């Protein structure tokens, strides 16, 4: 446990001492802000129009801003996860520092968990920065805060699952670009698996669409806490880290 923290802290300080963390924070804030700005703008214009038309239908911030924002920003993970995970092991393999870690009195699983945790904590930072936008909603309106929290939990679980996948792919190569590109490709595939369900209802198609990542985010995005989707993400994390551990073991046997 102590070793896990040592690894995690070094990893985080490495993210933040290079431009990568700051670049990702900036990009994520800009994109999330742009989404927010547009939904908000839409909401404001619509409510003014309604007032002018004299209709007094209630406008709902949760339904018209928070829900679409949560649903539509979830796909940002597709671009940000590979950028975060690509260096995790690939860089250590290239620079030779993996020899230091692998010959230190530290278990492989502590190394893997430490690195994955650092990546997840960085992602939490992205979400926290983006969350500043919500402060404005709470300052000037009275939205229900629970869907925001549940949506955030969903974004975090989804990201943690994809980060585990990215961590695994990063152990397979010493080239960061390859690790990043492969992670992007595989995540994209997990994104579109569910397409098959639109025309095919065989078991095969059902399994594929169950594996699809965004399908499990829908209820979180709507503000509904769904245990079965949470189980999916947690299993995804577990399998991803399990494969990482096997990959690191085979690294020891093969290299």
């Amino acid at each position: 446990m102590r070793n896990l923290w040592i690894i995690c802290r070094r990893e985080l300080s490495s993210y933040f001492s290079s431009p990568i963390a700051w670049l990702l924070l900036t990009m994520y804030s800009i994109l999330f802000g742009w989404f927010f700005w547009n939904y908000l703008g839409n909401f404001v214009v619509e409510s003014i129009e309604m007032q002018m038309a004299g209709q007094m239908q209630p406008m709902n911030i949760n339904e018209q801003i928070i829900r679409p924002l949560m649903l539509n920003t979830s796909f940002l993970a597709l671009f940000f996860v590979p950028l975060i995970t690509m260096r995790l092991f690939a860089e250590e393999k290239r620079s030779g520092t993996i020899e230091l870690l692998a010959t230190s009195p530290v278990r492989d699983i502590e190394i893997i968990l430490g690195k994955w945790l650092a990546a997840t904590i960085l992602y939490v930072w992205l979400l926290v920065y983006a969350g500043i936008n919500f402060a404005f909603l709470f300052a000037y309106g009275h939205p229900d805060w629970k869907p925001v929290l549940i949506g955030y939990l969903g974004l975090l679980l989804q990201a943690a699952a994809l980060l585990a996948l990215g961590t695994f792919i990063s152990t397979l190569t010493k080239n960061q670009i390859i690790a990043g590109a492969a992670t992007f490709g595989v995540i994209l595939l997990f994104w579109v698996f569910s397409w098959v369900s639109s025309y095919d209802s065989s078991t095969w198609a059902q399994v594929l669409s169950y594996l699809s990542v965004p399908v499990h985010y829908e209820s979180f995005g709507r503000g509904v806490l769904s245990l079965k989707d949470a189980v999916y993400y947690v299993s995804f994390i577990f399998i991803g880290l399990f494969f990482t551990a096997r990959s690191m073991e085979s690294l020891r046997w093969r290299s």
Partner: protein
Amino acid sequence: MITVTDLTKRYARTTAVDRISFTVDKGQIVGFLGPNGAGKTTTMRMLTCFFPPTAGTATVAGYDVFTQSLDVRRHIGYLPESPPLYLEMETDEYLRFVGRLKGLSGAELETRINFVCDRCNIGDVKKKLMGKLSKGYRQRVGLAQAIIHNPDVLILDEPTAGLDPKQINETRDLIKSLAGDHTIILSTHILPEVEQTCEQVLIINKGKLVATDSVHNLQARARGAESIVLEVAARSGELSVPMVQQRLGAVAGVSNVTSKGQDDQGAFFEVESRKGQLVRGDLARAVVDAGWDLNELRPAAMSLEEIFLQLTGTEAAAPPPETVSPPESSAAEPAAPEAQP
């Protein structure tokens, strides 16, 4: 301190290390010598638990590298071929990280950091990003991280590779000063390094251990039959090389005489005698009696380099005359005067 028995590492098609066995006593410095690709790094990686052996066993500080890997790792310091530095970190931040990984904490950690910085002479770059350090400094930081937890065993993979001559000397002195407290295995393909730093040598070639002995014994062993180099000159006129050869060959106990070329000073000959026979005096007398001058007579001590080539069987080309009798040869002086009439 280190016991290796039939250690083997096989890859899909090749055998990188083939059943090597050796032991290293506490406090010794052992040189692990071999051409590139001989299996030095592979052996070291098995000892440091970077990967497990295919067959055979090794114990380090009393722990088995396979079954008690974490205990072994606690007792070794390892400097891989390229120092494992995180270039985006500052030196002291890095040493703190490694120290923690090896189990140090609190005041003890800080004391050890100061100690290794002092020992490895890196105090002035403590607050520098390691990406900005020169090769020599990086190597020393690598050494510092290897000794930070005061390990019983130090394993150094080509610690002087890529350094300039001054840095090489500094690093060697540092390594020598570390012996005693630590048992050290260092690998190299540079022979003088072994002659200078190590007490014992393990020579490895194509995955097999071809020799293991002290540096001194190894030189004596490879010499085998005594071999003597003579420089003979004519008092006047031309020297007949075949005649000298014939004359030297007639001396009792001489088994072989080879001509090693000629320059304007005289002609060189290498004389091999049967083991245990001292023929130097007879050789000198034979030359002088024939009316020639004996300019030089010395035992042809094999350099470790020649032993190495002999043992590994690579590039067995005959050494050029310059190697046989270098102009600044100091070995010649004690022998020559006693031979002069």
